[in-house]
């Protein structure tokens, strides 16, 4: 009896040294590492993970007193409500069109500029163009929209130009048919230079002897761009394209918010601005959260699909 008891206790201590005890010893050794990670961990937990849990509000009848968890479940009530709403079609359509225009016009612009910059042999001039073209990236959205407002006003730059062709002045900001062009155009103005950085880096990694050999073989500039430069940036193009497709529904809605007005809602109102108006301004949290959740779910699906397609047809993919 006595023997078995002591044997058991020996076994206990033995298994202890290789199990929890070692873990504890390491834990004590690493106490500073734990301490260092703690503040960041808490911030991410509270401001990134709590809101993920807070998404549940989309399935609930939110009651401030009961909190998110305590509120009544209502299932997909708010999702159905949105899809039955005639506003849904308008905002989905506007979001998709703005996203598609961004992809068609905004995405290739920096690629073209990078290829052309790469053809400039005068280094100082190239540096100068780069420095100038990066700057708009650092201008705030409020300033950009303020400038658009000034240029599109009746006595502004745009009407000065159209006036040269004898056209009547127009207030571009209040006519919905100009909204998309202004939105995408100003986006390109702001982003084209900055967007070249990754492409230029990929181009500088292209083997210079390839260009020499091609010159000896009598290739002209266009052939060199097509057969050497473009293949050199293809992986970068594909990765950035996948990310852009994932972001196609993620309109820069803060810019829309500053740019639009009731007379342009018809073309300008996107899902995110709708969420803002109903949720933050109108206090319909559950409904707005449901709309936001649908948007992120579809966006995520877009990334998955493009990534799958890219992996299938080329060697490059995000994962």
């Amino acid at each position: 009896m006595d023997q078995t008891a002591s044997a058991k206790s020996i076994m206990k201590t033995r298994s202890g040294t290789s199990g929890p005890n070692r873990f504890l010893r390491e834990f004590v050794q690493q106490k500073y590492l734990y301490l260092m990670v703690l503040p960041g961990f808490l911030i991410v937990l509270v401001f990134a993970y709590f809101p993920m849990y807070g998404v549940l509000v989309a399935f609930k009848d939110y009651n401030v007193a009961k909190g998110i968890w305590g509120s009544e479940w209502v299932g997909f009530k708010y999702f159905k409500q949105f899809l039955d709403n005639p506003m849904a079609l308008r905002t989905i359509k506007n979001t998709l069109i703005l996203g598609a225009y961004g992809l068609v016009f905004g995405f290739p612009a920096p690629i073209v500029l990078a290829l052309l910059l790469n053809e400039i042999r005068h280094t100082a001039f190239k540096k100068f163009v780069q420095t100038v073209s990066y700057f708009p990236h650092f201008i705030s959205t409020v300033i950009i929209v303020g400038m658009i407002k000034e240029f599109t006003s009746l006595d502004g730059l745009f009407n000065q130009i159209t006036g040269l062709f004898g056209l009547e002045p127009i207030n571009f900001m209040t006519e919905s048919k100009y909204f998309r062009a202004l939105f995408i155009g100003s986006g390109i103005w702001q982003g084209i230079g900055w967007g070249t950085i990754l492409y230029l880096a990929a181009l500088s990694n292209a083997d210079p002897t390839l260009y020499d050999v091609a010159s000896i073989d009598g290739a002209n500039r266009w052939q060199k761009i097509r057969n050497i430069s473009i293949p050199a940036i293809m992986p970068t193009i594909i990765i950035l394209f996948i990310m852009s497709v994932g972001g196609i529904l993620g309109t820069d809605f803060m810019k829309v918010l500053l740019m639009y007005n009731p007379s342009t809602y018809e073309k300008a109102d996107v899902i995110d601005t709708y969420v803002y108006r109903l949720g933050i301004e109108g206090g319909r949290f559950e409904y707005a959260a449901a709309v936001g959740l649908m948007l992120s779910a579809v966006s995520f699906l877009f990334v998955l699909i493009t990534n799958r397609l890219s992996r299938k047809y080329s060697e490059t993919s995000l994962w």
Partner: protein
Amino acid sequence: MVYKSSVGSRIFDAVNIGFMLLLVIVTVYPLLNVIAVSLSHSDYISLGKVTWFPRGFNTKGYGIIFDKPMLYISYRNTVLYAAAGTLLTLFLTSLMAYPLTISKFQLKNGITVFLAITMFFSGGMIPTYLIIKQLHMLNTFWVMVVPGCISAYNVIIFRTFFQNISSELRESAYIDGANDLVVLIRIYLPLSKALLATFALFTVVAHWNVWFNALIYLKDEHRYPLQMFLRSIIFTQQEGQSSQVKDMIQNRQINPKNIQMAAIVITMAPILCIYPFVQKYFVKGVMVGSIKG
């Protein structure tokens, strides 16, 4: 290498350089025009005669902006948000990234996954707002500084940078009795000045330009950052002006655009002034960030 430039190649160069000059003009002209309008006489503005340079020199727009107490309040707020936000971002990101470079740290993989998830999923605008509201952080100083200060992306870049620092330095510091916190502050951070400077710049610019968070999280004007002040100048109609300013507009002593463009210039000036000197660090920052991608 000697180029035997063909005619076609030279035409290509000429067109290309022409295109680049056009790009420079299209980029610079709007900015110069903003400055020119801010300094021009009302009549030239309404006739659409102001282009590159001010016409009928007039600084009344600046006078009106400089008379607004909210300018100074919001400027001070933005400087405080930017300073506190940047310090917090750099310090907490370093603290979180350092342990992830130590392979035997028990939570290394756990924390990495914990951060990576946030790169793909987020709660969205409304749930984030509700959490911040429940924490009673609405309308506080900290709501502009704390929630965005740790990003998975930054932590990963810092970790990658720290990994390139020789671990022998760390080991020898241990022997001298230093703990990890001391190693980070005394050895790693001084060796990471370039990284810290680059990210400080990015964070300061981000704080300088923020307005949407202020719009949804702040109610009290006196906490508003500079961009919210600018927004109120640009997007409020004349009714918001004092009667004195209204009279000036009536008498065509001043154009509302004078005031609006002056506000833009005042907001943009600091960035415009430091930009030429720090531009190369921004580019470096993008490159550092893309390595992991």
